[in-house]
């Protein structure tokens, strides 16, 4: 069976919710049924075939071609299979995702991996705000899984994050790891102001010292964190994209905080050059 390929015919004028188009949502559906799926575009309803050219049958492997930022909710709540996106993806990629793989060969919008509970998301370019963050009103953000961003990420990366790993190869915005409750964030570029503000637990690793660190974080000095050796080794073994972590040493300046909330979290600013 060939993968189900959805090629966007023209860029829609308004946002289209394609959260249904997941291996879970399309399971056991034939191509005619898939083509008749109703999609909401602004205040109109469209049939899927009006928006996408449909090829292939294997709904566990979905390719979305010529994607644009108007397509939101890609891979929403999916639990298995894979989705690859060629082009830009809109907001909420992998929202509430439970398993499977999403690969975006371009940028993704805000809220990528929001409320994620498992699986793997890879974004080749940049993402917007609230990467791996919490759903509106939810007390916990990402609680399992791995997100890898090769470009930059916006503000509040991993807001309220509970578990899992977020890796940003480029820069991150302000308040990275805000209100974090656990998990690990790695930022290899420059981070914005006040990372980890309101964090209770969790680890944020920076390759460069963030622009501003909150007064509620205290430095423990430069230490050899043997745990980083373990973290970098395991991640570089498991994810090809993270192979460069293998060359990073364990020396880091450790800031413990947020001391206003128990101080069990940590910011680690690496000392060895990449």
């Amino acid at each position: 069976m060939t993968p189900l390929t959805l090629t966007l015919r023209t860029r829609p004028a308004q946002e289209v919710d394609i959260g249904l188009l997941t291996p879970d949502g399309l399971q056991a559906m034939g191509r005619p049924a898939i083509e008749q799926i109703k999609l909401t575009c602004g205040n109109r309803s469209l049939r899927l075939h009006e928006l996408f050219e449909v090829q292939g049958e294997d709904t566990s492997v979905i390719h979305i071609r010529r994607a644009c930022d108007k397509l939101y909710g890609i891979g929403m709540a999916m639990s298995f299979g894979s989705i690859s996106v060629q082009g830009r993806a809109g907001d909420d990629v992998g929202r509430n995702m439970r398993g499977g793989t999403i690969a975006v060969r371009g940028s993704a919008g805000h809220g990528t991996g929001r409320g994620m509970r498992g699986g793997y998301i890879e974004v080749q370019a940049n993402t917007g705000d609230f990467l791996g963050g919490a759903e509106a009103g939810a007390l916990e953000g990402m609680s399992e899984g791995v997100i890898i961003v090769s470009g930059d990420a916006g503000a509040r990366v991993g807001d309220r994050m509970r578990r899992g790993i977020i890796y940003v190869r480029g820069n991150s915005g302000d308040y990275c790891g805000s209100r974090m409750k656990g998990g690990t964030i790695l930022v290899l570029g420059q981070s914005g102001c006040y990372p980890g503000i309101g964090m209770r637990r969790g680890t944020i690793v920076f390759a460069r010292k963030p622009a501003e660190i909150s007064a509620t974080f205290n430095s423990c000095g430069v230490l050899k964190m043997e745990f980083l050796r373990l973290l970098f080794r395991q991640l570089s073994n498991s994810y090809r994209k993270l192979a460069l972590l293998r060359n990073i040493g364990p020396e880091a300046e450790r800031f413990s905080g947020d001391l206003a909330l128990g101080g069990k979290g940590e910011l680690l600013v690496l000392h060895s050059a990449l």
Partner: protein
Amino acid sequence: MNINGVYIEDTFAEAFPMKATRLIITAMTLKSAYRAANSLTGFASSVIACGCEADIECDLDPADTPDGRPGIAVIIFAMSVKQLADQVLRRVGQSVMTTATSACFAGLRCEPSIKLGSSIRFFGDGYQIAKRIDGIRYWRIPVMHGEFVCEEKTGVANAVGGGNFLVFAKTTRHALTACEQAVKAIRRVPRAVTCFPGGIVGSGSKVGSKYKFMKASTNEAYCPTLKGRVRSSLTPEVGSVLEVVVDALDQEAIRESLRTGIETVCKFGPKKGIYGISAGNYGGKLGPYHFHLREILT
């Protein structure tokens, strides 16, 4: 059956089921890892009085350890999962965590499992941090040298203990030389260890005693000084008997260890004072695993 003039008795080694786990100890240097491993496996020759049996399995290259540092693999055996958990907690807590720069990881990842870092973490007095990487939970316990990193749990295997063979020699020097070479060869067999000091037993025992409070006592049938006084199993030319005991994670590793060990001993031959090979058993009443020497060697 003879190998190089050494008589192989038609008998079997009787082994019994045990519970075992494998741990990986790493440190900044191999020397430090050895310090921790030697301490952990100290006073662990026999479950009769030590609570467990333990020994170093092998050195590990940095490429083969979870944190990329030099490491040592050790295997610990006990009679029950509860006893194993108790011994692992005591020994890792007192021997590994106290060694500077050390870390401890599971060498078996299977179910059932016993607590490792989950118990030791309380030493952190509330400052300990858990970190989950790729589905495996590690505990980071703040200590004076930095952090003691310890995996949450370690798997327990249904293992085999008490695989053995006896070496009949002209003198103790002859027996010791041959047995030392045998143990050296057995150490190359994966998943198997020799828990007694140097891997060699100088005081093999039988079950029970004339004294009611003794669980085990000297095996008089193999004591050269009792020849002529008791019903001895030794021929007149035999002046010393040593035993090599092997514990392993599976039967195949025991079989391979016994074969390797016996073949090494037999290379010495009668000219170098080695006359025969036998094995310790209790008539098949003690353990369900019977390793027949002649079958293993053919």
